[in-house]
């Protein structure tokens, strides 16, 4: 378990000053950083400091009923969205039958959180039946055209729009790079992965795909449909995506299995779409993450990995679309009724991965990835009220509790002084260093990863006092045992260290294991706790190695300790050490090893 003993203890012995300087520099740097950043207190959890409370009301307009199961699912998903990193201590709960309350601690970007919880995040991949620029887009060459003109008019739009940041979807294997060159030649600034063109696997189901609609020739589309379709055609014709009201209504209430109209903004131009039934939906996205595309220069994009069935469906639909003429070789990625991207396909995309790219900012990409990863809400929600709330724990009670904790700490100090006398200075200095580091790091983590300190975390920190103190109690007892053997202090300090170090590492590893597993697996408050536990355990090791041990080495050179002053806590007589002259009298028997009673 322990690291090679000789080398490390030797170096620690020879240069105790260096370790001390190192940790002092770390403290100064961290504290300086804390003051520079202006976050001089840890962000407190909602139970200690209050925060913002958002009330959301479910709307029953998406075809799914407002019932307990759906509400519970929504709470779970929102919980994971707001607690993405697990340390922000937000709370989500239902109220009544159709409300959800989201409580966010003070200092969180509540606007961002509002957006995150409120987004339904229903994601569909729908084949594009027709699309065209819509409404007041000045640079659009084709005026809001007739239904039949939709597809044919598009090529003319391409030069202007495709010049800037093409949007594309691609299998990640073939990723990006190859896409852009071909983009300019085709329609509407959407590019595709050409890399797969070579090994394109034509899907066996030849010309007639799905409902048959996508395979219709562009000009035939408008008149070719059923009654419902012609109604949609009319809708499509009337749709003006440059108008906010039209946009809001466009994709509304669209059932995944039906054809629909939708709007989408690409390079600041609104396009309108006539979309086929959903081929793949968001529930089949296993995982999504925001990545920065370094090769294709398309900036931030969201990479999705499909589940097994999702990747098969995706391969099928892309295979079919690839055989069509523009724009029917495109599919629309529709999020909450809006087309966020409509790449075209030139070959079936297998491998279960896809990317959404566009002019995302980093936060947008991350937020979208976060929302996609945790799935769509079964219901859509409307914000009812946003208000501040005070701490859930009464302030007076909390103060009383802290006072009580302080009294307890004072008792610890008294105990240490009585028992360890001079050594207690080392113990308390170590505790203080550990406390400063914990405080500063927690303060810095507030703005960095949204860490919020709640009451359980405070209590965890109190227990951490015990674990930290244990590390040097183990060490002190070892030193004392060595002195009882008749050693003088300096060799005792060095001989005790390797064994104490092993004990400390072995036992801290268990704590750290607990913290790591819980942090990775769990969500919400448990994850926040695991974080605190892991942090304090690591700091314990750092403090003991870089502070307590070097300090002991230095103090062992002081007369006060080395001569075993009565108040040093290392007085050989007081410890009941044997007079040194007897040291060599008794030879070591074979039994000496195993029965050695010296440990702490």
């Amino acid at each position: 378990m322990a690291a090679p003993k000789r080398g490390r203890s030797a170096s620690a012995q020879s240069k105790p000053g260096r370790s001390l300087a190192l940790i002092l520099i770390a403290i100064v740097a961290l504290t300086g950083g804390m003051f520079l950043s202006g976050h001089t207190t840890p962000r407190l959890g909602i139970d200690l400091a209050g925060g913002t409370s958002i009330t959301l009301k479910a709307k029953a307009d998406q075809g799914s009923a407002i019932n307990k199961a759906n509400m519970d699912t929504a709470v779970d998903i929102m919980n994971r969205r707001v607690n993405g990193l697990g340390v922000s201590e937000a709370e989500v709960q239902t109220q009544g039958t159709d409300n959800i309350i989201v409580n966010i601690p003070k200092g969180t970007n509540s606007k961002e959180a509002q957006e995150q919880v409120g987004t339904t995040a229903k994601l569909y991949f729908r084949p594009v039946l027709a699309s065209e620029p819509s409404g007041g887009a000045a640079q659009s060459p084709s005026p809001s055209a007739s239904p039949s003109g939709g597809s044919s008019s598009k090529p003319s739009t391409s030069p202007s729009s495709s010049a800037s940041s093409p949007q594309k979807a691609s299998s990640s294997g073939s990723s990006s790079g190859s896409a852009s060159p071909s983009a300019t030649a085709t329609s509407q600034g959407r590019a595709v992965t050409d890399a797969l063109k070579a090994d394109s696997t034509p899907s066996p189901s030849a010309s007639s795909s799905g409902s048959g609609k996508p395979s219709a020739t562009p000009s035939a589309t408008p008149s070719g449909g059923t009654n419902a379709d012609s109604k949609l055609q009319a809708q499509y014709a009337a749709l003006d995506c440059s108008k906010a009201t039209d946009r809001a209504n466009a994709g509304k209430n669209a059932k995944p299995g039906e054809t629909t109209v939708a709007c989408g903004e690409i390079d600041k131009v609104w396009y309108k779409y006539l979309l086929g039934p959903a081929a793949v939906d968001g529930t089949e996205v296993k995982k999504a993450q925001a990545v920065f595309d370094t090769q294709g220069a398309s900036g931030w994009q969201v990479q999705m990995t499909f589940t097994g069935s999702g990747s098969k469906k995706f391969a099928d639909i892309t295979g079919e679309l690839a055989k069509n003429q523009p724009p029917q070789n495109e599919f629309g990625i529709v999020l909450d009724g809006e087309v966020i991207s409509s790449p075209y396909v030139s070959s079936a995309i297998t491998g279960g991965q896809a990317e959404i790219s566009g002019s995302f900012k980093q936060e947008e990409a991350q937020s979208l990835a976060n929302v996609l990863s945790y799935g769509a809400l079964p219901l859509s929600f409307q914000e009812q009220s946003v208000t501040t709330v005070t701490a859930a724990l009464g302030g007076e009670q909390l103060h009383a509790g802290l006072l009580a904790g302080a009294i307890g700490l004072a008792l610890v100090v008294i105990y240490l002084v009585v028992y360890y006398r001079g050594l207690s200075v080392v113990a308390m200095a170590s505790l203080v260093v550990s406390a400063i580091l914990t405080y500063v790091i927690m303060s810095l983590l507030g703005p960095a990863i949204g860490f919020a300190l709640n009451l359980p975390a405070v209590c965890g920190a109190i227990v951490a006092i015990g674990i930290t103190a244990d590390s040097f109690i183990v060490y002190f007892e070892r030193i004392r045992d060595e002195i009882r053997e008749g050693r003088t202090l300096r060799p005792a300090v060095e001989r005790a260290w390797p064994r104490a170090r092993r004990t400390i590492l072995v036992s801290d590893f268990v704590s750290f294991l607990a913290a790591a597993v819980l942090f990775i697996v769990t969500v919400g408050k448990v994850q926040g706790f695991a974080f605190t536990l892991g942090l304090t355990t690591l700091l314990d090791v750092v403090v003991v190695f870089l502070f307590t041990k070097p300090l002991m080495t230095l103090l062992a050179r002081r007369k006060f300790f080395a001569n075993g002053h009565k108040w040093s806590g290392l007085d050989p007589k007081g410890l009941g050490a044997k007079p040194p002259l007897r040291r060599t009298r008794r030879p070591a028997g074979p039994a000496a090893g195993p029965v050695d009673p010296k440990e702490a």
Partner: protein
Amino acid sequence: MSKLGNLGARLHRGEISYDFVGKRKIWYGISILITITAIVGLAVRGLNMGIEFQGGAVFTTPTKMSTSVAQAEEYANTASGHQAVVQKLGNGSLRIQIAGIDTGQSDKIKQELAKDLNLDPEKLAADLVGPSWGEQIANKAWEGLGIFMVLVVIYLAIAFEWRMAVAALVALIHDITITTGIYALVGFEVTPGTVIGLLTILGYSLYDTVVVFDSLKEQTKDITKQTRFTYGEIANRSINGTLVRSINTTVVALLPVAGLLFIGGGFLGAGTLNDISLSLFVGLAAGAYSSIFIATPLVADLKEREPAMKALTKRVLAKRAQAGAEGDLAAETGADAGDDADDADDAAPAVVGPRNQPASRGRGRGRTSGKRR
């Protein structure tokens, strides 16, 4: 030096010791008794789950309330008999949440609360709230615990040996059962704080056990190369050797928590911290106890079933029988043999005879640094 320091010295020299391993049956018995009490308590009284787990009622007052949060909390506590959570909203109204009440009770409490707050009951909006600590959080926590247990057993089995892993696990379950049982018996509300407290205990219990095992492992490294002591006896020495450390650590860990629980909860009336500090206090105490009284004797028990250890025990007993036959001779063969008798005596204090005999020597003749590895 303080008395405890002296105690440390005497424990170190083996002048005094407590036979933890020899008397293990008593402690096993006590632990089983406490554990059964805890389980019965759990079964009969059940856990009083807080609003975070089971949901409850929420009352929202009109805006511009003059009543303070603390006052409202007191009213709500007396009206419902549960620990209420009161928050002030931005618009000046109060949000009062009370756990575990259904619609029928809710009406009654509403009336009472309205009277206390000087309100028209109509103006006090009542609604039911769901749990904020949803099933998913709980399930994930269980999943995490399961994975951790498996990993920690594997780790202990590699770093130490499987017997120690088993014993550590038994001690852990023992601690957790007792802590939850006491919760059921005391009737405190279980909050997320309690659960976090339990998880902390889980970490601490294992931590403490591992520290004790580490010393046990060190002491029993070359056990088969000697014939003076059985595994159980060495295990006992090891516990006694770490006793001072165990006491110190436990005191240091328990004092702040005891401060929270007894001073804070008892005198200052900080009831909100009781849930966490109780689980921490009981758990820390149980964790320290089980490492010494349960885990290590259990390892000794398991270990002595091993053939190699059985053979060792036989050899040790044979040697002792021989030494016994040689009678008083042993006492006079000098420090070495005397030490043996002393050590044997420590391990099995049932033999009272020679205990007082080497008192003068005890101050440190026999043991020298030559014994060090």
